[in-house]
């Protein structure tokens, strides 16, 4: 039995594009970087809210990882509250963060199935400026498996001194490195990509916009 409160967002009858943002909130993100990240999140939000189709289809969840993992936003359509990373301190529990993200995705897609809502391939979008301080190998295997079964689209973005070699190993798609603090461009790209997906046909390959924020 699904509680009706959980059902209410689905009264719009629209298919869903689930996307988890897995955000690094370790100590190294503090300061300029965190400010730029939050500004980027704001841009993502206004872009999504601006698009009549996107705002009825794209669901964002946010997982922050530092010494531990926090789910700061559960899956929902973009609403009034813009997700922000309030503080950054501690270590980089990236492995645990990723597992939490995968768990949220599984839980959400199971709910879609129960309710009978069609959905697009879920996105997991990882952003980090460091290197995992916990067990990342298990998470990497889970990501690889989900990707191989075409259950997931995984994106890893490194900022600053992020360990790109390790990041690249996470996904068949590789990893991207953010040019400086171009979070605005990054999140503009993310919203354009998600919006592109939201108007596409379910199960279809959607070419994404040019990566103009990447230094590679």
């Amino acid at each position: 039995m699904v509680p009706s409160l959980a059902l209410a967002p689905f009264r719009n009858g629209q298919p869903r594009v689930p996307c988890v943002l897995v955000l690094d909130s370790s100590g190294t993100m503090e300061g300029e970087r965190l400010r730029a990240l939050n500004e980027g999140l704001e841009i993502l939000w206004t872009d999504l809210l601006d698009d009549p189709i996107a705002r009825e289809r794209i669901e964002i969840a946010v997982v922050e990882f530092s010494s531990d993992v926090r789910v700061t936003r559960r899956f929902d359509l973009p609403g009034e509250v813009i997700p922000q990373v309030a503080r950054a301190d501690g270590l980089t529990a990236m492995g645990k963060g990723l597992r939490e993200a995968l768990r949220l995705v599984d839980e959400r897609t199971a709910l879609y199935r129960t309710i009978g809502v069609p959905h697009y391939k879920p996105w997991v979008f990882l952003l980090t400026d460091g290197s995992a301080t916990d067990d990342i190998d298990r998470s990497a295997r889970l990501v690889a498996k989900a990707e191989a079964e075409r259950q997931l689209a995984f994106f890893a973005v490194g900022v600053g001194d992020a360990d790109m070699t390790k990041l690249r190993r996470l996904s068949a798609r590789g990893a991207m490195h953010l040019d400086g603090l171009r979070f605005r461009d990054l999140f503009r790209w993310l919203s354009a990509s998600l919006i592109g997906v939201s108007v596409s046909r379910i199960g279809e390959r959607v070419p994404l916009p040019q990566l103009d924020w990447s230094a590679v």
Partner: protein
Amino acid sequence: MSAHGDLRDSSGIPIDREGSTLLGRGGEARVWALPASGKALKLLEPHARTPERMRVLEHLVAHAAPLLQGADDERPWGWPEELVFEAGTCVGYTMRAFRQRRTLFSVLVPTERMRVFPAFDARHLHRVGANLARALACLHDANIVVGDVSESNVLVASDASVALVDVDSFQFVDARGELLPCPVGKPELLAPEHHGEFFSATPKTPASDAFSFAVLLFQLLFDGPHPFSGVFREAGPCPTPAEALLAGDYVFAAGSRLSPRLGMPGLGAIHPDIAHAFERTFVAGLHRPELRTSVKTWAELLDRAELGLVRCSRNRAHLHPSAAKACAYCTRADHFGRAFETFAQVNADELPPATRPSMPPPLPAAPAAATIAAPTAAETPETTPRPRRAFTRRIPALYGKRRAHVRDDAAVAEVATEPQTVAPVDARASAPSAPSETVVRAVSRAAAPVLPGSEPRATRPKQREARAPLPAPPQTLERSRALPRYAVFAALVAAFVLGRCTGTRAPEAREASVTSASAVPTTSSTPALTRGSAVLRRDTLTAEKKTPRAPR
């Protein structure tokens, strides 16, 4: 709109773009409002400026004059009026600007609808459907098939009137008697015969439009969900709406692998005749276009159903068919709570009169072979294209004599196939989709048997019951006459031409269509595709098209 420099019309007069604002954008164009002239300007993206497109525009503008007279309601389409050139190349056209309207998307998504048209109730939804059906029927009578009937090509006003845009993707026969196909469409809206690898080569028919229309109407009347989406009853991955459509998993069909989405209003929300017409289209007519409910029939059914709506005694914002024993929306609210309310406002006003679009004398008839032109030099041209500067080549129009087309075949088929009994609607259909079997049972009792002969039962009925066929309104038909021998030759010629048109698909695009089920977002960009592969264009380029966001 800085990307464009000096724009001129066909007589070389500059287009005044002072203060222009963006009205909308699609896969291949942006549409701007021009305050100076009061017109809308559609500027094609470079990849959409193909020779085929130019031919289409040339034809449309040449035949525009009679289609432009009259009020919005009489001519509810954005017919191209003037071609627009940049440095001698045609880059788009001007048309009537439809202001104060929203795309049909915003009406069929209940949460959006409550925001943009808060006063809309079930009457308005029926009226939007009927007005759209009439506009389509009117075009069909003129041998035009819309082809891409979609929620983004229909604009709705607060009086429930509709306008069709994206006229340059309509399918019609040009002055040379050649079919200009509509190779675009969204798979989840396209009739099954247009799916698969050769979709762009299969000419669309009025029955293709009728199918897409029915999908949109279903979404309009049932708060948004697609008729081929819902709770998958089997293990394994749930089919996408496009897959379920091909497999025939209509949610209200007996034996469907999908059952209605939780929280969707039950079949009691609509008139039994409407439910029946959906069945004809999605079950019997799924692979047999001639059995589908025609747009003309839809218009009549919707008009009648609208008149039969009664106000709910518990919630004055709800209206339900008089035949329903309980209000489907109240039943839903009882089970899922008020958060599910999709009609917030009581609107006691009378609706304005329905729109009655009309057509000038028909455009050239589509030949019976469905595809094909039969060029015979002996025939007198009915019309000569208006000479336009950019198109110095004058083509004598070669059409007119053979009107051997099938008109409104779907409607006729309804009469012709009368004895056929229709699969009954499942018992679960009359209840809102509920989270558990027990709830379903409780609700089905409350929600009342909606259709005669389909009493709700505790268990799903295995046995089918016959229901009296819908009394179809009398229809007339011009039966297709036998093709003369030269037409067969012409068919071959045209098949060749069509083949050329549609064979221009880039190899990458072909690959994209084959691998489309794999759904891997890629970071590579796709080359611009031509009109012949426009379905792929629409779907594959969507992610890109939004990137350069215009400052608002």
